[in-house]
């Protein structure tokens, strides 16, 4: 009882998602919230009066750069495959301590946090490094390129939605997502099942519609600045979000996939707040442990998804009605939902920043001695983890500002992208402007929500 109360006062570092919240509570976070909301609202107003044509043209600009290597994707994927199984083996045979074993550290930090940022900022690295493509190419060379089975059309990418929910549940609700051996089992099974699916139904079909990591990373990479032209193989430089503005429309399952992605990282923040402790019915100073809150967290994760999806679809629907244009809800939502990507990436950055800074160091130490046998492969074994980078008022100030800039910037980019998309959907600029108002209001509210999550007291 006694010490159960204390941790919340501490700089929670390892695998926690918040910095030193006590110091953040002393910052004028309310001013940031008002300022952030005004900035997002103003950017909408300014865009309404800005000529849409030149803006869209600018965002369509592509600056050609080097030619992408045509070969090597299989080899790179094999390297990813080898790394994947080495890590899984470390999960089975290495230390049971999640801060010494490289599997949970590398998977949750450089991979899940880091690669998502790389995908969103730079480009689609996952296409190259994923651990299935190479082995699939090898096996399909023996068996022939044609897949024996086809996924039914009605299935769309709903399996990916279900798998993303399962993954988020594993990360946020399951009691021990960091346990090396359990994570190793989950990943090994997932790889095998996915590989079998790719062999049976074809790599592209499975990666586009079932394998949620490929779907997620593919969507996130639409925000990034590097674009690869499929035919010529040239790599071009785009403005952030440029590829989103001219993306096609997502089917309903894809729309909900994206909304789920934002919901999960939003709930990740929400479930740590005192506010949520009140809803779930526990004392925030006496957090009972994950196993005690499985039911409430599961419900909360689902409710967050339902609430965000309902709010988004309602905003799109009302916007359509207000504009007077007859655009189907699925079509409008399937295009405008692309504007969620920068928000999801901003949330991802903000919520994982603190954990990344500390757990990245643990990962660095762990890869040098993957089995805890005293090896020092890269000279980083026994590396002293500088947890103090999160401690104190200065760190809290820096981290809070980085988070606030990301959240506000992400929403401003979202407003811009939905603006460009809206002009494509609607018949006239006036109707496009009117039709966007509900979505812009939602984005202002979500900016407030995002900043509030990061400024609230947390367990």
């Amino acid at each position, binding site marked *: 009882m006694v010490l159960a109360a204390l*941790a919340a006062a501490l700089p929670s570092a390892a695998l926690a998602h918040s910095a030193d919240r006590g110091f953040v509570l002393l910052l004028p976070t309310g001013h940031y919230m008002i300022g952030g909301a005004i900035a997002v609202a103003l950017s909408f107003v300014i865009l309404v009066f800005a000529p849409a044509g030149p803006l869209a043209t600018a965002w369509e600009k592509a600056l050609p750069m080097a030619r992408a290597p045509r070969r090597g994707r299989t080899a790179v994927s094999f390297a990813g495959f080898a790394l994947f199984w080495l890590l899984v083996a470390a999960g089975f045979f290495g230390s049971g301590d999640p801060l010494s074993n490289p599997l949970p550290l590398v998977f949750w930090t450089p991979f899940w946090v880091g690669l998502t940022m790389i995908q969103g900022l730079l480009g689609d690295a996952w296409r190259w490094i994923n651990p299935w493509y190479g082995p699939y190419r090898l096996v399909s060379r023996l068996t022939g390129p044609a897949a024996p089975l086809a996924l039914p059309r009605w299935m769309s990418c709903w399996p990916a939605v279900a798998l993303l929910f399962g993954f988020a549940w594993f990360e946020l609700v399951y*009691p021990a997502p960091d346990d090396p051996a359990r994570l190793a089992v989950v990943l090994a099974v997932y790889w095998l099942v996915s590989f079998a699916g790719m062999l049976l139904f074809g790599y592209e079909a499975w990666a586009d519609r079932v394998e949620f990591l490929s779907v997620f990373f593919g969507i996130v990479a639409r925000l990034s600045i590097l674009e690869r032209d499929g035919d010529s193989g040239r790599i071009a430089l785009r403005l952030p979000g440029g590829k989103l503005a001219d993306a096609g429309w997502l089917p309903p399952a894809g729309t909900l996939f994206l909304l789920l992605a934002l919901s999960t990282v939003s709930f990740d923040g929400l479930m740590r707040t005192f506010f949520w402790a009140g809803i779930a019915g526990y004392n925030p100073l*006496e957090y009972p442990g994950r196993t005690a809150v499985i039911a409430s967290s599961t419900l909360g994760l689902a409710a967050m998804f339902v609430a965000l999806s309902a709010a988004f679809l309602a905003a799109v629907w009302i916007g359509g009605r207000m504009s007077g244009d007859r655009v189907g809800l699925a079509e409008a939502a399937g295009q405008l939902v692309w504007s969620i990507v920068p928000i999801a990436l901003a949330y991802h950055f903000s919520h994982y920043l603190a954990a990344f800074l500390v757990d990245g160091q643990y990962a660095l130490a762990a890869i040098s001695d993957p*089995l805890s046998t005293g090896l020092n492969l890269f000279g980083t074994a026994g590396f002293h983890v500088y947890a103090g980078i999160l401690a104190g008022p200065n760190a809290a100030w820096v981290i809070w500002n980085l988070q606030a800039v990301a959240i506000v910037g992400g929403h401003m980019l979202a407003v811009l992208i939905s603006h460009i998309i809206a002009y494509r959907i609607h018949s006239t600029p006036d109707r496009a402007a009117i039709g966007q108002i509900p979505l812009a209001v939602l984005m202002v509210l979500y900016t407030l929500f995002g900043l509030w999550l990061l400024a609230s007291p947390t367990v």
Partner: protein
Amino acid sequence: MTGKRSKSSMLTQSGLSRRTLIKGAAAGAGLMMGPGFVRYAQAQSSEPIKIGFQAHRTGIGAAYGRWYERTTNAAAKMINDAGGINGRPLEIITEDDGTDPKRGAEVVEKFVNQHKVDVVYGTLFSHVVVGSAPTAGELKVPYYVVSEGYHVASGKMNRWCVQPGITDVRAQVTSVAPWIAGNLGKKVTMVYPDYAFGHDHRDFFTPAISAQGGEVIAQVPIPPTESSFTRYLPQIPSETEVLYHVMVGPAVLTFVKELGEFFGSSGPKMFGFIDSLEAVDIASPGLEFLDGTYFWEGMPRYAQADDSDAVKAYRAAVGINDNGASTEDTKDVATAAHMFGCWETLYVIKQAMEAAGYQGPQDRAKLIEATEAIEKFDAGAEHPQGDKVFNGKIHQCFGHQNISMVENQMLKVVHRTSIEDGMYEPAADYTTMPL
């Protein structure tokens, strides 16, 4: 297995047995890698003594867990460098309990059945101790906790659960009362979070200050969800001589700031527990108001002028500088008031194993009896926090407490309580329970 346990073991057994089938002791660090993977009972004389370290590596206890781990490793190294226990080296096997009671119980089970440890050790958070102790009792494995809670001494655990390396909160609260009444004042107002943690302080301190001729003139319980306190502060009576505060959680800094704004340069004397600001730099902006106020500390965070060689050696081995922060990373402030308990507990295990002639898991009951037979620990390299007495009946040690004043945003010890100041009437006797 009792009905209560079967639920969580059913949950884990499929996972564990699966791994066990495939890989043997899957997560044992290097367990199957070397020639050391022989059956334990056959080669125990040369085998290391295995200490299962039930660590808060993730979850809300992680910041504490990091320092508990550093202290544990430092003590284990010290013991091994000096020849180990009964000539056998110590091996620390760390498992994460996620600061979660159910996982805590699973970890105890894993330590016993999979890692074949000799003892389980090191748990800090009380709810994890309370969740894990029944499993330790069922599996008959000595469970040495470092949790500071009153639950061990209360008699609510079992004979396998002992707390020989850190005093409990009841003793801590009781022991500071005489000094407060004699030096700060007799009219006390208590501000505390309104749940079990705060209630312990209220219930233990109120009679203790009465016994000194003092009086708690007002109690100001604060709902745990509060993050601003200005509307509670007017409840502090103006005749208050001492404000006793034990606020915890992320809003502690806000609490201090608002106290400063409320009282300005006047106001009562203040006494708090460093638990509120453990691992937080006292020299942080906003905490200036604390200058001239007093805190309980289990072991001083800041190096003191009269530190013994044992204290200096302990601080150097754990790796903390004069400000109580990591020598490698001066912003990483240690949980100094509590983590010494890990060091001292490992040395208690050593002392008890040597007294019991401990050979292997078959001697676990003898180890408990040998621990219960200990009556005192002398101050020194093994017990740098100071000498202690141990009550084998309630499995709890009693020791000195430090009262420190904040001076120039540093903590300076102004009084050290006697061991007797913290003594209370034992309410249990574990030694009558069967082993």
